[in-house]
């Protein structure tokens, strides 16, 4: 009897190992918790295309939008941890969400296995083209003096443009009047036409408008200038070094996904990020790719914990919740 048990256990272990080795044997679903066509969706599609080639199986991007990305994230958290359910999470779903949604059904730090960082998109501070301040220093003074007379546009409570602007306002100690829009498109429309004064958003949404001069950029909130907009200074150069935010996108799997599988996925992700064509496509969007240290599964785990710890007090202080 005992021998039989040992034999069974050995067999099970062997098949488990065999599974991990054979993985993947069928298409993998990658949930993107936002609508198709948005910045996270674009990163997911570019990265997953190359990953599919490495893994030898198609990665199917499935857009499960809703509730600021938490609907799709909840679904992945509760999905089978077999390596066929993964997701592209981002700064909102795995950083700001715990503070925004008190009834959140998942814990970003506990309910996921980390696969790896894909790409970040820097945040820019932009303003309507005829707003008086010429640079960030002038804007800081102007914003403090104007305070609630200033109109800030954002793409809805909990969106990247909202939370990153909350961070800016808290750090500057200002309370501008927030004008909520449904999405970046309409917000940008009213910024271009001068109805609102300023906003913060991801570089990919803004880069062409800035180049055309229909809006102006004060600073990019990353340590280094973006190659997509080499003339725009960093917040550090422009006088507000503490404002460092990025809308990062990273791949997660449900808790309990075998180690061998997340390792394989991470390997495919790293190969995608080092591939020249894929890299160029991400960089053309203004994306920032993680360095070698930042690409590991452990680095992402530490990073997510730090992000949750960073966003929670800021959003609590500003009194922002989404339900």
């Amino acid at each position: 009897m005992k021998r039989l048990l040992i034999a069974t256990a050995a067999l099970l272990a062997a098949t488990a190992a065999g599974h991990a080795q054979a993985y993947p044997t069928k298409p993998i679903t990658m949930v993107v918790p936002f609508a198709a066509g948005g910045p996270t969706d674009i990163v997911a599609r570019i990265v997953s295309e190359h990953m599919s080639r490495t893994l030898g199986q198609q990665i199917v991007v499935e857009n499960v939008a809703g509730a600021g990305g938490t609907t799709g994230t909840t679904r992945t958290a509760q999905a089978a941890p077999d390596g066929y359910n993964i997701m592209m999470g981002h700064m909102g779903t795995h950083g700001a969400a715990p503070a925004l949604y008190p009834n959140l059904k998942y814990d970003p730090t506990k309910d996921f296995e980390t696969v790896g960082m894909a790409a970040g998109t820097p945040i820019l501070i932009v303003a309507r083209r005829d707003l008086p301040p010429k640079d960030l220093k002038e804007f800081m003074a102007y914003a403090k003096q104007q305070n609630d007379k200033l109109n800030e546009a954002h793409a809805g409570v909990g969106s990247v443009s909202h939370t990153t602007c909350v961070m800016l306002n808290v750090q500057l100690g200002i309370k501008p009047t927030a004008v909520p829009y449904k999405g970046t498109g309409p917000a940008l429309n009213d910024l271009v036409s001068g109805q609102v004064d300023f906003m913060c958003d991801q570089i990919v949404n803004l880069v062409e408008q800035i180049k055309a001069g229909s809006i102006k950029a004060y600073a990019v909130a990353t340590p280094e200038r973006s190659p997509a907009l080499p003339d725009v200074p960093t917040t550090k150069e422009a006088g507000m070094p503490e404002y460092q935010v990025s809308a990062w996108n990273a791949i997660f799997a449900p808790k309990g996904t075998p180690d061998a599988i997340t390792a394989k996925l991470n390997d495919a992700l790293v190969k995608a990020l080092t591939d020249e064509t894929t890299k160029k496509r991400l960089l053309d969007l203004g994306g920032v790719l993680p360095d070698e240290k930042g690409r590991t599964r452990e680095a992402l785990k530490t990073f997510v914990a730090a992000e949750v710890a960073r966003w929670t007090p800021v959003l609590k202080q500003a009194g922002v919740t989404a339900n």
Partner: protein
Amino acid sequence: MDLFANLALGFSTVLKLVDVNVPLLGVMPLPVNILLCFIGCLIGTLIGVLPGVGPIATIAILLPITFGLDPTGALIMLAGIYYGAQYGGSTTAILVNIPGEATSVVTTLDGHQMAKQGRAGVALGIAALGSFFAGCVATLVIAALGLPLTKLALLFGPAEYFSLMVMGLVFAVVLARGSVVKALAMIVLGLLLSTVGTDLESGQERLTMGLQDLSDGVDFAVLAMGLFGFAEILRNIESPETRDVVRGSIGRLLPSMADLKQSFWPVVRGTGLGAILGILPGNGAVLGPFASYTLEKKIAKDPRRFGRGAIEGVAGPESANNAGAQTAFIPLLTLGIPPNAVMALMVGAMTIHGIIPGPQVMTKNPNLFWGMVVSMWIGNLMLLIINLPLVGLWVKLLKVPYRLMFPAILIFCCIGIYSINNNPSDVLFTAFFGLIGYVLIKFSFEPAPLLLGFVLGKLMEEKLRQALILSRGSFSTFIERPVSAGLLVVAAIMLVLALLPSIQKSRDEVFTE
């Protein structure tokens, strides 16, 4: 003139021969962009016809397939899907009374009545011809006036938008076939339904009853498929004889000269209205068909024919619908700002292909811009060629026994709804609205004003609050801004014009009964 040089560039882009390695046949030069345009139009027509499967889901699904194509070809195909769906959508609205999109709600009113009278072929034919005319004109508008018209989109701030929506509400009153009071009740119900979901400003959930699936509100397709699709099926199963009317006589397949003559001006007016409203940001295009229907009903000699199979009620709105679908590309191509959800997806498609949309697309990628413009005209021609022969086939579909037809419609509706958000609970909500729709039909409340109230409500609340935040709570902003004030005045005049005859008519009806 520049325009001709640009159009020539567009034609050369679209007609360009590319050496393609065809399996079995070897390398041969093919006009790839034309083929892609055709494929897009064909797919568009098909998904337009299938109830529930919309262009958004289709474009999202097909996006990865376009990775291997060059960006111009990919965008030509995706655009073809979008405006092709507008053609196909009218087919379902006319034949089975299901609006695939907000813009085809109006077509159900008279289009389906025409089908019931055995004039389905005529309705489909005039929809296709009207759409073709509108598509051609709108393409010219984009080519010639795209840049100056961009200013129109920028002229519309939140206050102007709110006033435009108020005008839209007046259309809803005019839409009503029967009692004005019942129509008003439906509009208000629609407005209320539109407030379900997360509050824009505070992030609080409203009327969601704690259901997470309602936190983003009710989706238009869910509501429309329920109120029209499911409810219509319930009603038809209850009384099979009404279906036999549609099945019994088919009548002529294509519009007669008299039909064409009657439709000519409605098509022209519809095209104009649709083209202007399509340019506005925030999905102004949905108002086009409603505005056209209102106009036609108001200027008709006998407005009573409307809702009972008036051909103008199909010709005008269908043209407006297609013109709007086309001019909606103007803000995308000249400003780089998407005016609606489908265009937002096109932004994604362009971005994935390495072309980040912005005000400079036209100067930086003239091949893409003019190629797309020209492909739209060619696409419209293709759609006419695809659709006219299909009219006979669609009409024959009506001969299929209803007991075979409704399970198919039901399944397609369910697949379509599921494909919007990949969310099973959406299908359940549709079934729920189906029951509501059935009850409403039984009490002779009309679903069309409810849907319009719903569509306008979402935009109206958003714009009202934005306008009031910007004016720091002062309502005078709506009359201080000239464009906004003008729109409100027009709305007031239309309301008076709309209510006077309806009140008289309802009195007439009381007397005749």
